[in-house]
């Protein structure tokens, strides 16, 4: 009798142990969200997740953070292994390649009110989601690059921040002094670095439909844009660090080695942490020969994976990410919103002004699943010019041939 009671108790306990969590799990839906946010952004995200979960007690957000450089590999592993996230925050230039792999859900197909929603975003960031006839994500945050200049050095030389590319080149050369100081420095030869000055001078990579680079990357305007930089480099007005193995732009600018650099809004946080005494000064990218400024659009889009298990809950989370509440919250840690309704909002930090203004003219990089390869081709073309192995025209003509071979693949 005693053993029977004992066995029954054990069985009952086992039953409860297995039954209880199942009941709970059925109550809550888990949405897996992957991102590459910085420390302050991640802390803010945790707060905002708590807000969301309070409003949606049936949804549990499981956020995972990755290093930017490992993120594409981590996503591939998850997708190939059949264990992908439901929602992710992707760099805007990665969206076409993941769409091309068949990993993403087209937003214009899953959202019934897509048109109405799309009209609420700044057009530049929204455009970065478009590829092959569909929108594969929605703009989550945006950024662009502007000019950072060392005010003390400019005043000492009796100069004003340059408003045209001609003034910019002159100022850079005036401020340069052998290896002691360079007027301007780029982080490298990858396209993101020269992109703002390239676009401001009317440069372009391909036609709008991304079918050819001929007549675009090797156009007169594109050649002239690179020629400006090559001439500056040869005159010793650009630091040689862009060819590799030198002092980085962020620390070099703060130390007074580089009078001007071109970079994004995150520099405010970086300098506040690493160089608290350094005064950051922003100015718009100088205008090209036709008098218009421009820059390059950066940022991240939110995407929904085709294999997502809980699409409804995932869409509720995406809804929240694109709400004014979330975007204003993230703005507190330096993230620029994508909702046009927030333009000029008083809650946004003051330094956003110059970036929001620059975003009106900033251009998106070529949307293509081959972007990483195109980027490397342009990077190499820039190297050939700087190393005097090819003329600017020759380097860009060769790059066009390589890019066209990719586009026709």
């Amino acid at each position: 009798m005693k053993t029977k009671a004992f066995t029954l108790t054990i069985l009952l306990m086992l039953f409860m142990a297995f039954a209880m969590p199942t009941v709970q799990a059925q109550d809550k839906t888990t949405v897996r969200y992957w991102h590459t946010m910085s420390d302050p952004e991640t802390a803010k995200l945790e707060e905002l997740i708590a807000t969301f979960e309070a409003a949606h007690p049936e949804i549990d957000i499981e956020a995972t953070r990755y290093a930017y450089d490992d993120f594409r590999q981590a996503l591939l592993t998850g997708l190939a292994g059949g264990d992908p996230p439901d929602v992710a925050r992707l760099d805007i230039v990665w969206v076409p390649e993941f769409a091309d792999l068949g990993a993403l859900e087209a937003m214009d197909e899953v959202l019934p009110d897509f048109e109405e929603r799309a009209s609420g975003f700044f057009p530049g960031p929204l455009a970065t989601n478009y590829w092959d006839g569909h929108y594969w994500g929605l703009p989550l945050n945006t950024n662009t690059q502007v000019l950072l200049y060392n005010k003390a050095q400019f005043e000492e030389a009796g100069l004003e921040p340059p408003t045209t590319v001609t003034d910019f080149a002159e100022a850079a050369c005036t401020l340069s002094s052998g290896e002691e100081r360079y007027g301007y420095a780029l982080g490298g030869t990858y396209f993101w670095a020269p992109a703002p000055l390239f676009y401001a001078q009317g440069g372009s990579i391909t036609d709008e439909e991304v079918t050819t680079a001929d007549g675009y990357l090797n156009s007169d305007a594109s050649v002239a844009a690179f020629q400006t930089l090559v001439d500056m480099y040869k005159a010793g007005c650009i630091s040689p660090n862009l060819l590799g193995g030198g002092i980085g732009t962020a620390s070099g600018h703060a130390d007074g080695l580089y009078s001007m650099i071109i970079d994004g809004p995150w520099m405010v946080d970086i300098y506040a942490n690493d160089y608290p005494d350094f005064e950051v000064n922003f100015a718009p990218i100088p205008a090209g020969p036709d008098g218009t400024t421009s820059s390059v659009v950066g940022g991240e889009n939110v995407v929904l994976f085709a294999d997502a298990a809980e699409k409804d809950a995932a869409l509720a989370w995406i809804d929240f990410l694109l709400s004014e509440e979330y975007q204003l919250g993230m703005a507190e840690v330096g993230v620029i919103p994508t909702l046009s309704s927030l333009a000029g909002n008083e809650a946004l930090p003051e330094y956003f002004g110059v970036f929001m203004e620059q975003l009106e003219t900033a251009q998106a990089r070529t949307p293509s699943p081959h972007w990483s390869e195109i980027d490397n081709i342009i990077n190499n073309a820039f190297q050939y010019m700087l190393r005097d192995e090819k003329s600017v025209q020759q380097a860009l003509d060769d790059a066009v041939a390589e890019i066209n071979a990719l586009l026709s693949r």
Partner: protein
Amino acid sequence: MVPVKATQRETLGGLTLPSKFRALRQQLGQAVTPYLFLVPGLILFAAFILLPMAYSFRISFYDWNIIRPERSEYLELKNYQDIIEWPIFRRAVVNTLAYAAVTVPAQIILGLGLALLLNQKIPGQTFFRTVYYLPVITSWVIVTLLFEYLFNSQAGLINYWLQRAGIIDDPVRWFADEKLAMVPIHLLGIWKGLGWTAVVMLAGLQSIPRVLYEAAAVDGADVWAQFRRITLPLMRPTLVFLLVFLTIGALNVYISGLLLTDGGNPLDRTHFVLTLMYEETFDYFEFGRGAAISYLLTGLVFLISLVQIRLLQREIEY
């Protein structure tokens, strides 16, 4: 009970039927048992080495879509043909072979010298052995970053010393030149591997019987003659082992190249076979081409190791 014991004691000469069966089972057991012990290892080897190898061999014939494999396009040998004809790949092969040609002999010669020194009876012997082994156990990533700083063109210690010593006037831009960029990469490879080479050599040296040296000394052989006639010939198996192992390691050079040249900078001229394989696979998602590159490297490693072993491995006689 007694008859059973009797049959068990019977020799193979006069077996009864049940005991014949038992012997057969015993023989079978002896044949099967070792394999049973190998099963767990073999399962792991198959699951994590053989199957992925076979899978990537298949991938190398496709334009492979890793997420939707059913969308992959069969290309026959196109990946292999394209890669063999690709100038960047050829350059990567040359860079990889040059890396092996420089770092392997350097490690063996320096390692042997170091082992001979460490084999001396000197105070602090253990201390020196530990110190020379330290680079081996430190992380590749960390020491690579250290070398990146040492060879920084604007703030690096090497340029500073060279300028102070009056050897150069202007700072050398190590990483902006495809030939100069190899200097830190080769030095790092030698420095990092030296300790391990020396320890293996030391084990080889200590296995040589002391009596041989004593006998040679009695016969009037000087230190150099002892080294040439005793040490070198008896170290042959160790040296062949090191040559094959270090060569395979050198052909797989990867982390230092990836971090120091940012994967091929400048102009994709500093790639090694593995950095190129990584770039194709994980930067450009060209899994088919990446798999083809890795199989070409496997072939190269196999061929070189085979030649080395055939040419150098001989029986040693005391």
